């Protein structure tokens, strides 16, 4: 009995310390005045990182706050809200999701108390509906306790391709732009007009290997468009936010996908298979990216089946 008690107390201490430590360690950094983000870790989502692997954050206006991507779990969403409350007491009026992936939308429910308007690309509702059962089944297991409370909240305000939407946070205008199929078929960027800061969502990965879940040709085209933009700050979907690094990051990501596309096109022209492409393509990029082994072959597979139809 004594043994059981000490075992249980030990277990309890371990559990409590892990939860307390997690919330203590969770932080946000200022990008520029009124713009904050939490930088996700370059890991696979897990119970121990509670899905906090993407960049999430908020922009503060004079009237209210817009959250841009809400976290990889309900737990992360609640930590982000805690950090937000340390900085401002203004209400959260918008929760903007840049796309459907779990690390960007699973925290949505944590902001419900302020009754915000949820905003996304016009194709985001369909993307959520198509993935909800698969994501909920898989991520309940992956995230464990952190998943509890997670809800799939579709946007009530949507942005159409070719028709950017302007939101006002009180003397602070945001311009939301919807893209044709790139990283996904429903990518959305947020531009803070005041500081000329662009939140790219996963149109830009820095350090972490980019994952293609849309169209390789479409994404390459979008990257070229982004390159031409004059911006003061960029918050990528993953990796460092800042004023200078992003140009190089974009260049590196463009080089990765262009190289992939060139090599896969050659293999397809030579009637090669996906398996063959997976073994040969892009291996010289290995040292350039975090989590290369986890996602590179996936990028080849997904690109291959698209490039077959050129």
């Amino acid at each position, binding site marked *: 009995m004594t043994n059981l008690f000490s075992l*249980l*107390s030990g*277990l*309890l201490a371990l*559990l*409590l310390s892990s939860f307390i430590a997690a919330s203590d360690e969770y932080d946000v950094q200022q990008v520029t005045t009124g713009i904050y983000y939490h930088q996700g870790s370059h890991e*696979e*989502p897990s*119970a121990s990182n509670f899905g906090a692997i993407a960049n999430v954050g908020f922009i503060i206006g004079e009237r209210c706050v817009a959250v841009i991507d809400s976290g990889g779990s309900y737990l992360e969403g609640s930590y982000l809200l805690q950090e937000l409350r340390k900085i401002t007491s203004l209400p959260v009026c918008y929760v903007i999701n840049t796309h*459907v*992936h*779990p*690390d960007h939308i699973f925290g949505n429910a944590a902001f419900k108390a302020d009754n915000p308007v949820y905003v996304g690309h*016009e*194709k985001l*509702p*369909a*993307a959520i*509906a*198509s*993935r909800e*059962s*698969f*994501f909920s*089944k*898989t991520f*309940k*297991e992956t995230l*464990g*306790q952190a998943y509890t409370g997670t809800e799939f909240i579709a946007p009530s305000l949507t942005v159409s391709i070719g028709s950017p939407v302007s939101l006002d946070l009180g003397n602070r205008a945001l311009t939301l732009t919807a893209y044709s*199929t790139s990283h*996904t*078929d429903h990518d959305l960027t947020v531009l803070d007009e005041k500081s000329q800061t662009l939140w790219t969502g996963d149109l830009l990965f820095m350090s972490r290997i980019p*994952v293609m*879940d*849309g*169209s390789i040709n479409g994404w390459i085209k979008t990257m070229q468009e982004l390159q031409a933009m004059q911006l003061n700050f960029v918050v990528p979907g993953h990796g460092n936010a800042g004023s200078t690094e992003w140009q190089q990051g974009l260049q590196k990501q463009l080089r990765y996908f262009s190289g992939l596309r060139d090599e896969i096109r050659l293999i397809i022209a030579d*009637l090669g*298979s*996906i*398996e063959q492409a*997976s073994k040969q393509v892009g291996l010289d990029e290995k040292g350039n990216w975090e989590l290369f082994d*986890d*996602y590179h*072959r*996936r990028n*080849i*597979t*997904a690109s291959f*089946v698209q490039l*077959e*139809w050129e």
Partner: protein
Amino acid sequence: MFKPLLKLLLISLSFTFFSLSAQAATPSEPLWPTLKVAYFGDREIREDANDLLVIEAPKRAEDAAIVPISVTSLVPQTADKYITNIHIVIDNNPEPYSANFSLSPKLGLIDISTRMRVDQYTFVRAIAEMNDGSLHMVSRFVKASGGCSAPAGKDAAAALARLGKMQIRMRKPSVGEPVQAQVIVSHPNYNGLQFDQKSRLYIDAHYVKKINIRYNNQELINVDTGISVSEDPSIRFTFTPMEAGTLTAEVTDSKNQQFSHQKEI
């Protein structure tokens, strides 16, 4: 003092049990005994038939929507002894019975591959049925893909826009020499989980049911397929043309739409 502590202990215990039961939700209970009876009744299946067949699949599904699977036979097809069918079963998919390849003895060696959706950790099985009725199985375990991968398609609009477009891809063959060919048809292969933006309803399952491949009007391969097959179904196979002629692929989907494509050799 003691009461709150006890309460915390109970909470911590329930957390522990929760995480244990969450892990148990990963399909660990073997489905195969039930599936075997459902698909093959009481027929005997020889397991680990590695002397006859090789199945290849990635150890980890890189992309849940596209998992290449190939099956080759180690024994040539002869008029006396040949594989009539290869059945593909993916234990933990929503519809485990995934494809039935009916194969002609004229194919020579069996060398077929296709692309499947794999939802979660699962065994992928190929069961060869011989002309004497015997069944022989090989299998591979495939780990689920991680991260954001989902079996739903990436660009539904693009897939639908190309619906029915077909390709037969192959090198210029020589008469009497084995040649590898690939038949692909563009089709969204909706499995009933995709959502339509405009109607706000789930799209009914709409998928390729049959791919029939003939050479000079003699059937080489007929594949009955289901919702496990990836968007834009692809079949690769090897055959030996014994004379000049026409390779024809005919595709029928679940709405009885038909598409066909030919290649002169």
